[in-house]
């Protein structure tokens, strides 16, 4: 199996079979670290070691089915209300980032982040913080369930209606924005429909309005005439269109391929061929998402060297993963500003297409931004790793045995081997044990090219 090859090490038929420890490869904390980094946002070494005691299927099931206890949900709801009261979407971003860092249901939060990029809605235009929160919670409710009810709910979500101007679409002049993005970005992909389909579908969504921050159907503005969309004719309404669009064979392929690129590897040649068995599973189970994730996270391909270290960390992923690995907490207002500078502002996706992922995260500007995010985090007085300041944590936990500490960091944080030069420098800096040298070591480790990948 060569790491450098573009081609996957398995055929489509083999790729999604369950991973067999010791037959297909090892099953240690390094593999569970991969599971947690991709399925969630990473975990401390002790959690990874515990997970390695379970089977791959059980470990991924536990990750996927973890829930937030009632007390956590209540606290989170309280903090959300405070963010809404501030009227500032950046407070809401800070709230969500805090939830990502501390929620026991990290696989759900990871998926909510995926969907936020998929149904990208920006507070740049939807300035009503309450509506942005409502959408975020709606996504959380549907994140791991069935796709069609999810899209139906999103189509009537007030923030979405405002974002894509559906809320002001009139019978006489339907607005095409929502109908277009439903097909192009949410369900089918570019080129899987005609311009006539868009125009006709837009008519079906007329009369879908927002009143008093809620969805309302205004029958006086709804075009009740006959329409033809994707080969079907009738006096369709908006819900019919969602159903018709999702019935297209392109729909399953579009979503599954996107999920596989998100969770397994950014760049996959002929991804649709590789995904055929999954696409079949998804269609046969009625577009249920959780079983698909279960298959992904316990598959041979997922744990292969072809996937490990072949995704670029997004700025939010980078920040949250670092904190989760160190059982950390931080001033998430500052932190979410920093991720925005590095190219990913929560509730501020760059446009209707969301974030491009992969190499698009990396340019000269964002690379400096990522390193500055780390230095800002290490310098901020509110940052805690396992209840200690970063310097204390480094001295008490990491610097007692620099060599062992770096090995542990390698396992928990890195999907790629640390380069020799960095290894030597970090060991030297840890051994010096001054506050400055300890933080310098951590800063260096979290700025090198290998850290950008997971």
């Amino acid at each position, binding site marked *: 199996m060569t790491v450098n090859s573009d081609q996957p090490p398995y055929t489509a038929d083999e790729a999604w079979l369950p991973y067999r420890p010791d037959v297909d490869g090892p099953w240690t904390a390094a593999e569970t670290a991969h599971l947690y980094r991709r399925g969630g946002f990473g975990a401390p070494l002790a959690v990874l070691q515990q997970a390695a005691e379970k089977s791959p299927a059980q470990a991924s099931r536990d990750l996927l089915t973890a829930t937030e206890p009632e007390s956590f949900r209540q606290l989170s709801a309280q903090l959300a209300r405070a963010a809404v009261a501030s009227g500032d979407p950046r407070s809401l971003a800070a709230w969500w980032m805090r939830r990502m860092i501390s929620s026991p249901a990290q696989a759900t939060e990871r998926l909510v982040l995926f969907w936020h990029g998929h149904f990208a809605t920006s507070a740049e235009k939807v300035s009503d913080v309450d509506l942005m929160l409502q959408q975020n919670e709606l996504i959380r409710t549907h994140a791991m369930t069935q796709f069609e009810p999810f899209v139906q709910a999103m189509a009537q979500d007030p923030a979405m209606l405002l974002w894509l101007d559906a809320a002001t679409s009139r019978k006489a*002049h339907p607005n095409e924005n929502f109908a277009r993005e439903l097909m192009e970005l949410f369900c089918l992909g570019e080129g899987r429909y005609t311009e006539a389909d868009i125009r006709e579908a837009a008519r079906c969504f007329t009369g879908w309005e927002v009143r008093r921050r809620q969805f309302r159907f205004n029958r006086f503005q709804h075009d009740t005439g006959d329409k033809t969309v994707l080969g079907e004719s009738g006096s369709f309404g908006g819900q019919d269109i969602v159903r018709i669009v999702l019935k297209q064979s392109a729909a399953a392929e579009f979503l599954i391929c996107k999920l596989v690129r998100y969770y397994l590897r950014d760049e996959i040649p002929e991804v649709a061929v590789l995904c055929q068995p999954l696409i079949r599973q998804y269609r046969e189970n009625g577009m249920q998402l959780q079983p698909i994730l279960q298959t992904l996270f316990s598959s041979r391909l997922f744990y292969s060297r072809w996937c490990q270290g072949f995704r670029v960390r997004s700025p939010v992923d980078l920040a949250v993963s670092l904190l989760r690995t160190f059982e950390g907490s931080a001033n998430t207002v500052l932190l979410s500003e920093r991720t925005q500078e590095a190219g990913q502002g929560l509730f501020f996706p760059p446009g209707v297409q969301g974030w491009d992922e992969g*190499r698009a995260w990396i340019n000269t500007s964002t690379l400096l931004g990522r390193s500055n995010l780390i230095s800002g985090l290490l310098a901020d007085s509110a940052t805690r790793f396992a209840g200690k300041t970063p310097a204390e944590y480094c001295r008490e936990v990491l610097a007692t045995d620099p060599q062992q500490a770096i090995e542990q960091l390698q396992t928990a944080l890195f999907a790629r081997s640390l380069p020799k*030069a960095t290894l030597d420098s970090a060991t030297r800096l840890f051994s010096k044990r001054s506050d400055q040298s300890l933080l310098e070591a951590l800063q260096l480790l979290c700025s090198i090219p290998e850290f950008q990948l997971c």
Partner: protein
Amino acid sequence: MFPSRRQFLQASTAAWTFASRLPLPLAAAATATKESTVLIVIELQGGNDGLNTLISTQDPEYRRLRPKLAIPANTTLTVTPECGLHPQLRGFAELLERDQLSIVTNVGYDQPNRSHFESMDIWHTCLRGDQRRGDGWLGRWLQESTAAPGSLAALHLGDQQLPLALRSQAHPVPSIKSREQFRLQAPNAESLQQELLIAAAPEPSSDDLLGFIRSSTSTALQTSERIQEIGRRSTTTTSWPEGPLSRELQTISGLIRAGLETSVYYVSLGGFDTHAQQPDAHARLLRQLGDGVSALMKDLNDAGHADRVLVMCFSEFGRRVAENASDGTDHGTAGPVFLIGNNVVPGLTGTLPDLNQLRDGDLQYSTDFREVYADLLQNWFRTDSEKILGGSWKPCGAVRT
């Protein structure tokens, strides 16, 4: 083994005399000569409403199809007896008075695609979706040009990903957001910089993805040093308007005046996807654009650099001719392209779109965007355009020959 930061700076002011010791990108950068020509591309994202940018003052069809959105003829800024600029484009009107503005009308392409991303990619690469798109038209020009590999031949300003137009195999093009943010911020920035340069050094065993991140990291660190150094030397007396575009143009102007060798600068202004409540939003954007470009040309003019700079503003498509019910317009087809500089043929190039000859409610283009590119490549960069554009296109005639 690696120069200290001070040595690094001395070296960068001394025209990179240590280039031979550092086989890294940018180390080979040459100092600009005053003669070298510069193109600044301003991308208007979202689909600019061309019909409300360059406004017909005579055509009754325009007013009939846009009962609410039509701009009153008497408020437009006269270009010809038939048309005028949006009232908020005062900056462009001033440029026109000084013979520094050329408007190429009704620019588009065959079988227009109305997806933002697809249409933008077509403009960037000159290729359709079913063709393999490895590089962009400016990237291909960089490959063909005599720019030393690793020089700062092109620069992208903004926090979005590198525009496809600038992508190429041989010339990694840096993206910078602003000069101030474009530096390592750490108590130990100097030693961090050196350690990172070592960690990012090319490594033959690394795969393509890791290699890409390594080379991007090297480019980031080295470009940052150069831009910071140039920033310390740059001063200006021009008063610049507010807004991100203006700030980016100001940065560009500073870099040009400081003698950076860069030939292509790329910036974008978003927000043109005006499906709803168009009038105020569109007016604000056009004002930013006009005032920003006008300040840029003044600044360059004062410093004696205006003759070697040309600005192009384009958008991925225009908008549907008829307005929608949300006081907005939907995705359309053709629109005007603006060229600004001392070397343009001032006024209109081409004719106004014919609103009686619509296809499915959309304009039919009269100038292909590649004719604009051919004009820039042949008459501005003095390069053969055929290979870069993948075909023979007649220059549209907006650049003085």
